[in-house]
């Protein structure tokens, strides 16, 4: 599971029926400096991920999202999703040695 900042939303036009009613977030993964408390803007480099919103996150909040096969597991029916926001972060305590 990785951490990322919610920077936007994605609304789907024509999509797979399993994705109906889903809420999709644009998430930019955090860099290690941002883990340690650096400001979230400018955004870290790296690919922006479209994440299925499982926790109701708003813009500017930090979410933990899991990727790959584990992202499709929470759904009762087979769903073509490979990034799932599973937690909304309140505090990050990060102190590497």
């Amino acid at each position, binding site marked *: *599971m990785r951490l990322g900042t919610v920077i936007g939303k994605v609304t789907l036009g024509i999509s797979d029926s399993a994705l109906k009613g889903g809420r999709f977030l644009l998430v930019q993964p955090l860099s290690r400096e941002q883990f340690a408390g650096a400001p979230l803007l400018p955004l870290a480099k790296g690919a922006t991920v479209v994440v299925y919103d*499982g926790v109701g996150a708003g813009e500017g909040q930090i979410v933990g999202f*899991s990727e790959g096969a584990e992202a499709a597991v929470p759904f009762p029916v087979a769903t073509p999703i490979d990034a799932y926001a599973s937690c909304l972060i309140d505090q990050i305590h990060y102190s*590497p040695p």
Partner: protein
Amino acid sequence: MQLARIDGTITSTACHPSMRKGRTVICQPLDLEGRPDGAPVLALDQLGAGLHQMVMISTDGSETRTLVGDERSPLRNYIQAIVDERGAGSWERGVNPPASVPTPTSGSKPLVPRS
């Protein structure tokens, strides 16, 4: 399974129910010499590993789902073991390897001399 070092924790009230079964810690995967390798990941900790301790995390979701006991859990990283000593050389818990870390080819001299 992967060696990692605990670098911190996160708190989260709105999260998947399977994450309430343990503490969510920030793990920094390590390479052979014990240097950070890649971005930090979040893992579920039920063993109570301390800060800067070296742990072994699972990187497979199906294993984590059985350990957590929730077939709908999106978790992948789970702390399976707290490492006391690594085979390649002895590394004291919480002590950084010296700057000149020997490359594996230079014999298995202990990274940190045992006191």
